[in-house]
């Protein structure tokens, strides 16, 4: 089935099998491998992208469901060499260890601040409940999100 999506501002059209998961389409067909596959069971959030501006787990969506939608992946966040404020905050606060959860964590965090620009620490922790860090590096991740919120206000 023909699918046309906008990813990071660019239009992509491909013929895909209906059972193709969105994350496989993004990684294997379009070739954007910044979005990781972690648990593959909608638990870990490593595959989080934005669909029409909201965080979504791309392992739990079919590519055909994304037809005509506007997608944003981690590759589309920075403006050229200038990191997105959330990426910059993650760097400054050392909010990554192995880095595997980071793309999904950053995408979830950006969506969280879009919905709640001035969260408390508890709201950040609850707001990131859909993302697991296997290094358990949550302390600095929460710090980075709060830092980004503060820097943006």
């Amino acid at each position: 089935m023909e699918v046309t999506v906008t990813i990071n501002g660019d239009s992509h059209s491909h013929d895909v099998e209906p059972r193709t998961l969105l994350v496989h389409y993004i990684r294997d067909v379009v070739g954007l491998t910044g979005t990781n596959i972690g648990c593959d069971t909608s638990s870990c959030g490593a595959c989080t992208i934005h669909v029409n501006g909201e965080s979504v787990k791309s392992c739990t969506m079919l590519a055909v469901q994304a037809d005509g939608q506007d997608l944003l992946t981690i590759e589309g966040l920075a403006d050229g060499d200038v990191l997105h404020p959330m990426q910059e905050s993650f760097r400054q606060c050392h909010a990554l260890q192995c880095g595997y959860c980071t793309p999904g964590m950053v995408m979830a965090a950006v969506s969280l601040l879009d919905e709640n620009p001035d969260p408390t620490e508890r709201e950040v922790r609850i707001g990131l409940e859909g993302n697991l860090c296997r290094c358990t590096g949550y302390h600095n991740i929460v710090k980075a999100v709060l830092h980004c919120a503060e820097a943006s206000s």
Partner: protein
Amino acid sequence: MIPAAFDYIRAGSAEEALAALAEHGDEAKLLAGGHSLLPLMKLRLSTPAVLVDIGRLDDLSYINDAGDHLAIGALTRHRDLEISEVVQSQAGLLAEATSHVGDPQVRHRGTIGGSIAHGDPASDLPSVMLAMRATLVARGPGGEREIAVDDFFTGFLETALGDDELLTEIRVPKMPDATWGFQKFNRRAQDWAIVGVSAIVDNGNAGVGLVNMDSIPVRAAGVEAALAGGASAADAAEAAAEGTNPPSDLNAGPEYREHLARVLTRRALEAAGR
């Protein structure tokens, strides 16, 4: 993990969805947000031959004040319910429980109708439907019919919906003055409840629904009866596990679930001011 192959039909209207169901019968499954169905399909626990995508039927996504009840379109997303002012003020229990479904990513895609039609006893929202005595509206080839929530859940992941029917609307009685409590016990933030309780008290009438205490979502009828008889929250909560048949899994056995049901029911009732 990749689902087994299926034919994909994208419905442009409820009528098109019903026509597809009429043609393909029990070989077809409806796809709304997909956050219950797709995980099962990836595990090959569900292998529908035809998937009818109703995710774009925007006319089934709404929250209307309909006098004595809220009329909620089946395709209304959890996120939209959670932040809806009218849901917060008229059905606060529903808004609160919805904010505990899955995680933000799940709530951006998942729908109230999908969650209820899935009929999972471990889901949060069926317990709210039971506590608030909601009515489910189904549309089929013969038109629309209303189904009382007590008649809706018929077996494990089975409901009163026919193979040729579509859940279109959820009618939740408005209870602006009600007091309520929602309790969900799990080990990790985003997990399903090991046991959960929805309790609401409106004009002295109590409704209590249980999560994960049987093969279907069940009402804590013993608790409701005890409260109607004037029992305290602590005494009424002792009846929470009566008549249930809790599942056993890696997280808990039946006895522990029964204990949780009593404790969580007491806490929910106390939060509801009983």
